[in-house]
């Protein structure tokens, strides 16, 4: 079973980071963030185009599929981000930052596969995929896959439908461009 697969899609990491840094520092406003996430795409029914697709989209309306978030947000028009979204034909794209010493909550399974492009990371930022369901009473060893995705300019396909979580046990935050396959 492939948890994470390196694709042949490659983009200019420096260019992405240059554009992201500009957008993060000078364009995005506080209300365009949901915690440490912000959307690059929205659905036609969004109230806030930059946050409605963040977090669990079930929180707003469980019936909204990821594929509805297919419209590019204005500030990303003409950027390398738009080019990547078009080339990969992806939906519900988000920038997701995990601060140092933070984790996602609990092991969970998403509805779709995801493509990840790493803008920045550290060696101790990793996905954790338990191979079997975790039994409450069970000690102790949980056979798992611990996988770090490097910032090497390639797109990685993550089978987020498998139970997983993410841990950043490093000293710097990590930033991924996360894109859903509808």
């Amino acid at each position, binding site marked *: 079973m492939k948890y994470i697969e390196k694709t042949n899609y490659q983009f200019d990491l420096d260019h992405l980071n240059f554009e992201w840094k500009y957008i993060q520092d000078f364009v995005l406003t506080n209300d365009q963030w949901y915690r440490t996430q912000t959307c690059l795409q929205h659905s036609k029914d969004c109230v806030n185009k930059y946050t409605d697709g963040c977090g669990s989209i079930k929180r707003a309306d469980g019936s909204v599929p990821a594929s509805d978030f297919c419209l590019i947000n204005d500030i990303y028009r003409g950027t390398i981000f738009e080019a990547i979204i078009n080339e990969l034909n992806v939906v519900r794209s988000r920038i997701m930052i995990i601060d*140092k*010493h*933070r*984790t*996602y*909550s*609990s*092991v969970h399974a998403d509805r779709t596969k995801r493509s990840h492009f790493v803008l920045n990371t550290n060696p*101790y930022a990793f996905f*954790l995929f*338990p191979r079997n369901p*975790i*039994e*409450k*009473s*069970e*000690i*102790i*060893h*949980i*056979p*798992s896959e*611990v996988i770090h995705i490097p910032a090497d300019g390639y797109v990685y396909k993550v089978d987020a439908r498998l139970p997983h*979580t993410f*841990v*950043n*046990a*490093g*000293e710097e935050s990590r930033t991924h461009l996360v894109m859903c396959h509808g």
Partner: protein
Amino acid sequence: MDSTDIMIKEISYDIDVEKIREELKAIPDPMRQTCLQGVEGSSDPYLGIGVSGSKNAWERERNDDYRLTDFKFPLFDMPYINGLIEKLGMFHTRYMYLKPKTCYSYHRDRTKRIHIVVTTNEDCWLVVEEQIYHLPINDSYYIVDTTKMHTAINASTHGRIHIVGIHQQYSPVMQLISKPRITEVARNS
């Protein structure tokens, strides 16, 4: 994993976690790491708390010159916990609260650690050399080989509490590697 490469060893013991929880109500700030053992002449429960942020934990900045072995005096009126600490021969014992959705830096210590689990759930793990472990609450304590690269993860929405200490038996090189104590003469010179 090689059978000789045991990262975590469970030791069956008659630990009463309810008693521990009751006594831990004396902790001044339950959402902060707190020493249960201090040095002679000090009642500061935060003196022996390290600063996070280094791959090699012993390289972290310290504000004192004490050896870990100096942290051996009970700081709180916790008869059951202090009794356990004494019976298990622990020193530099700390109450360790790990906030929800957080983890420690991936690091290694110079000594193995004894863990007594006080509050946990199935989304709390230790990662040691990329192997994942969950320590359940039972009557046992655990010896964790924290000399290997490791971190603790709380991927849940509830706090996790362990009592963590050092035991000389499981850390035979302790005396050799402890930070040399600066004498009063040296301090004053």
